[in-house]
């Protein structure tokens, strides 16, 4: 057919890519949060045992390794695609309005997905520096406690690293603020993503809107509570 463009190059196609990568990343958050919650329950010794064993289990599974590569790819694609969309959208603008009341027609977070996303991206870099770089790559891991797993292997005691990290007030603050940004990003993004890929049935759209909002609140609250609780009780 004449004039047919590539799958992801039109305005609709680009948003498809945003939606697919976004929904995949949102799904990953559930798995991540389940691990974090082990930090909240039991005595310090029990929490250390559960958290370290769970982390070790995930790290030793091939499927999780493959998923992690997909996650890196999804984050990069999501961010680069957003950048391309923003650049194209800016070209679509006419002259700036002298007086314009954007708040009259749409909520602020829906208009600032790029800002919220940028906060999340900076957070991801910081977060991986805090834990992933030390635990996986051993960067800055000198002098950290070691832990012996049930299997007899040893590795960095991730529990102690987490607790030590969350004893810094400013970092707990940064984590909580980042999770608020994540919450608003999901509050708009999950529902918008389902529309981008074409979920158009009236009942399903309503369900997706409600589920997306509940998901955003639960996920962001769950992630935000962990550093605060660790700071106070561990």
């Amino acid at each position: 057919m004449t004039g047919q463009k590539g799958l992801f190059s039109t305005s609709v196609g680009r948003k498809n890519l945003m939606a697919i990568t976004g929904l995949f990343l949102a799904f990953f958050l559930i798995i991540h949060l389940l691990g974090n919650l082990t930090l909240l329950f039991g005595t310090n010794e029990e929490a250390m045992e559960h958290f370290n064993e769970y982390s070790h289990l995930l790290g030793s599974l091939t499927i999780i390794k493959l998923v992690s590569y997909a996650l890196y790819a999804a984050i990069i694609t999501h961010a680069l695609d957003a950048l391309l969309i923003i650049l194209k959208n800016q070209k679509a603008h006419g002259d700036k309005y002298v007086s314009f009341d954007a708040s009259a027609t749409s909520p602020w977070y829906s208009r600032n997905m790029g800002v919220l996303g940028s906060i999340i991206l900076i957070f991801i870099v910081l977060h991986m520096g805090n834990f992933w770089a030390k635990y996986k790559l051993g960067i800055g891991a000198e002098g950290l406690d070691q832990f012996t797993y049930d299997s007899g292997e040893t590795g960095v005691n991730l529990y102690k690293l987490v607790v030590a990290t969350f004893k810094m007030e400013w970092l707990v603050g940064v984590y909580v603020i980042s999770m608020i940004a994540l919450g608003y990003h999901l509050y708009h993004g999950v529902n918008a993503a389902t529309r981008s890929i074409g979920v158009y049935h009236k009942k399903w759209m309503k369900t997706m809107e409600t589920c997306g909002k509940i998901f955003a609140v639960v996920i962001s609250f769950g992630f935000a509570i962990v550093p605060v609780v660790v700071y106070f009780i561990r």
Partner: protein
Amino acid sequence: MKIHLKIWRQDNANTPGKMVAYDLDNLSPDMSFLEMLDYLNEQLAAKGERTVEFDHDCREGICGQCALIINGQAHGPEDHYTTCQTHLRTFKDGETIFVEPFRAKAFPVLRDLKVDRGSFDRIIQAGGYISAMTGMAPEANSIPIHHNISESAFDSAACIGCGACVATCKNSSAALFTSAKISHLVKLPQGEVERQERVIMMVNQHDDEGFGSCTHTGACAVACPQEVSLDNIARMNYEYNRALCEIDS
């Protein structure tokens, strides 16, 4: 009542424009916004100045010609109204009102408050049609259509193409307009023949005209005088993805 106006004046597409202040007195609150502009123009003409140019036609809220940004909102402060149906009683006595044209790259300003919305026509030309037999008009009720479907198609068809969706959108996207036209035809059996190529051609034309992409903020549907639903955009996205899967098979 008294109104202080700040109106965008621009000679043509190639010259820069600016806001010019005008004060009006002895206005009736029951005047429509366009009648107020007529009143201003009479005064300007009497003084020998160039009148303020703006688009208008039916002044009944059905043609989609009038198109102003009033105090930062397309068609004024009330949701789901056209500019011509906005009356001065909506504003406070002595209020300062900013009046600007709809702004988007694809809507170049022709003069003052008048913009060229030809890009909408070209999106329609790209695929907003159906195949029909020539000759005698067919019997109107020869194709049975469920009442709910015909109502739903009519809701999409209610779009009057005013462009408030584009003017309000933070991305200057015409997704609501384009999707309303696509949904209107795809919901009916008559639109089935061009189902796949229509959505692809119209989305391509939308992009070629320089409109942005949809972020689902919902601002367009709030500004829309015809209450065209945001759901049309989801339907367009579905049709687009479906068409890409089917088109070469």
